[in-house]
């Protein structure tokens, strides 16, 4: 019998200086094929991954900001962002992209699965995940 586990991808790196962010995203896309319950957490410099308007194409890098917006189609239900990490960088949720989620079978919809959480919530969410992938 297939069992569904709670997976969390923990992203703490800025997007374009290293390959971590894109690698994490690729693993999420692959992992989603296995019907697990998937959440993403963005903390520390990881919050920069979701900043609207980023365009690294002039730096000759793939513009994968757009790819985050399809994660809802890949079964990702939650994208948590650590509030203190945002504040430390002078950012608010208004600076971040929105990601919609829709269950095409039940037509249930969520306008935006990006959610800002405080430190205690973040620690709890990490602790209650059964598998955590760190990037």
């Amino acid at each position, binding site marked *: 019998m297939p069992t569904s586990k709670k997976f969390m991808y923990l992203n703490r790196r800025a997007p374009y200086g290293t390959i971590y962010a894109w690698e994490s995203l*690729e693993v999420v*896309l*692959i992992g*989603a*094929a296995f019907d697990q319950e998937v959440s993403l957490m963005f903390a520390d410099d990881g919050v920069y991954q979701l900043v609207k308007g980023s365009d690294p194409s002039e730096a000759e890098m*793939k*513009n*994968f900001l*757009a*790819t985050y*917006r*399809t994660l809802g*189609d*890949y079964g990702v239900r939650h994208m948590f962002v650590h509030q203190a990490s945002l504040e430390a960088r002078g950012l608010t949720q208004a600076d971040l992209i929105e990601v919609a989620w829709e269950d*095409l079978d039940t037509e249930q919809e969520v306008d935006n699965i990006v959610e800002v959480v405080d430190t205690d919530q973040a620690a709890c969410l990490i602790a209650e995940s059964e598998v955590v992938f760190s990037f």
Partner: protein
Amino acid sequence: MSIVVNGKTLETDEEGYLADISDWEPSVAETMAQQDDLELTSEHWDIINFLREYYEEYQIAPAVRVLTKAVGKKIGKDKGNSKYLYGLFPYGPGKQACRYAGLPKPTGCV
């Protein structure tokens, strides 16, 4: 590897996917299909065009599961199943249709 389309030689990877997506034009798909002994119909083009729009918007080729669901929603409920898609693209809708559309090979299970 490479493919010759309208007299132009376009570079591909070892599996036949275009090296540079901006090389794509409709005759690329036609040429690739001819090499596979497949005649492209408007049903094939619906999928190829869908894939190109998806790539334009999200910068990746969709996984088959995502493709199937999205086709069902955007092109027609009766078409959002793997039987229909494999009927059109016998080598697999992920691989074959993405190749015709000039996209890189999809990430993950295809």
